[in-house]
């Protein structure tokens, strides 16, 4: 048994299963909707552009999840908003 395993055993640090769970949740979100990774990225880009026209958002922290507990599935967009865009802003201004 390595020291790493010993330390992990004692402190109960995370094993590989959380990685498995996270990866499965992502891949199944795509599988269930029949979306490819590219389509998902395109959707994400369009959503951020649309929101970005009205409010300033933190692009790196935008999260898009699909909840399959209910039928039909629910899309949840979590976008941290910095501030509303001033009215003078051009509608097509790029994201921050």
């Amino acid at each position, binding site marked *: 048994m390595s020291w790493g395993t010993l330390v992990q*055993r004692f402190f109960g640090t*995370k094993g590989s299963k959380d990685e498995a*769970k996270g990866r499965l*949740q992502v891949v199944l979100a795509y599988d269930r909707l029949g979306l490819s990774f590219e389509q998902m990225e395109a959707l994400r880009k369009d959503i951020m552009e649309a929101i970005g026209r009205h409010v300033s958002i933190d692009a790196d922290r935008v999260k898009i999840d699909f909840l399959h507990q209910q039928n039909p599935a629910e899309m949840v967009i979590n976008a941290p908003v910095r501030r509303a865009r001033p009215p003078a802003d051009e509608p097509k201004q790029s994201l921050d």
Partner: protein
Amino acid sequence: MSGRAIVVTSGKGGVGKTTATANLGLGLAKCDYKVALMDADIGLRNLDIIMGLENRIVYHVVDVVRGRCQLRQALVKDKRFPHLALLPASQVDQKESITPEQMKDLTTQLKEDFDFVLIDCPAGIEQGFRNAVAGADEAIVITTPDVSPVRDADRVIGLLQNALGEPQLIINRMSTDMVKRGDMLNQQDVLDILAVRLLGIVPEDEEVVIAGNRGSPVVLNENSRSGKAYERIVRRILGEEVPIPELNGHGSIMHRLGKLLFGR
């Protein structure tokens, strides 16, 4: 009489469909129910060898649909339980040798004489799967706590929901040690991902290999952990409320200290 036809399926191969079908069938027969086991894996039959009935096959399911024999002639009676019978698959034909309509017809006939018809589904989601599901009233999905079987189980659950309604899940080959270490998805993780009703958990058990070697499934072995798990699943299928023992991933600090010092 009209029995319940239950298909045992998984998507992924090698996760324990045939073993589960054999054990659930024998478990139900032990409770005095009349049970027919149907091997729907045409071309790759295995339920016969797992059950220890491989030397007693005369006719198979394709013979029945081609009219080469009567349905009752193809049924292999299990000497351990006279009210348990196997309808073997053909080893030489293709999945396409039978249509979903013919499967439905066969299942309907079997349901007249048996309380339970358990259908062992082939891996995959093609014709063999469609055949196996065609005559079923309910479905049991088997997975192991690994990424690819869980992903495939999700796909199959989606297909079943359209055809048969909500399936029930068996998680097979769960290792208490790996779950405790955090290196295996636990029961709650799998349920979070798949969102279906849990029918039971079968622990990893060397006895399953030995049972396969001998053609005597674990549910017949009083001392096997997995056999006991199958017995509990059988009682749940019969409508009894039997709690599912949880394999918990979080040991106490004393437990961890003990594990650190003494290994186990």
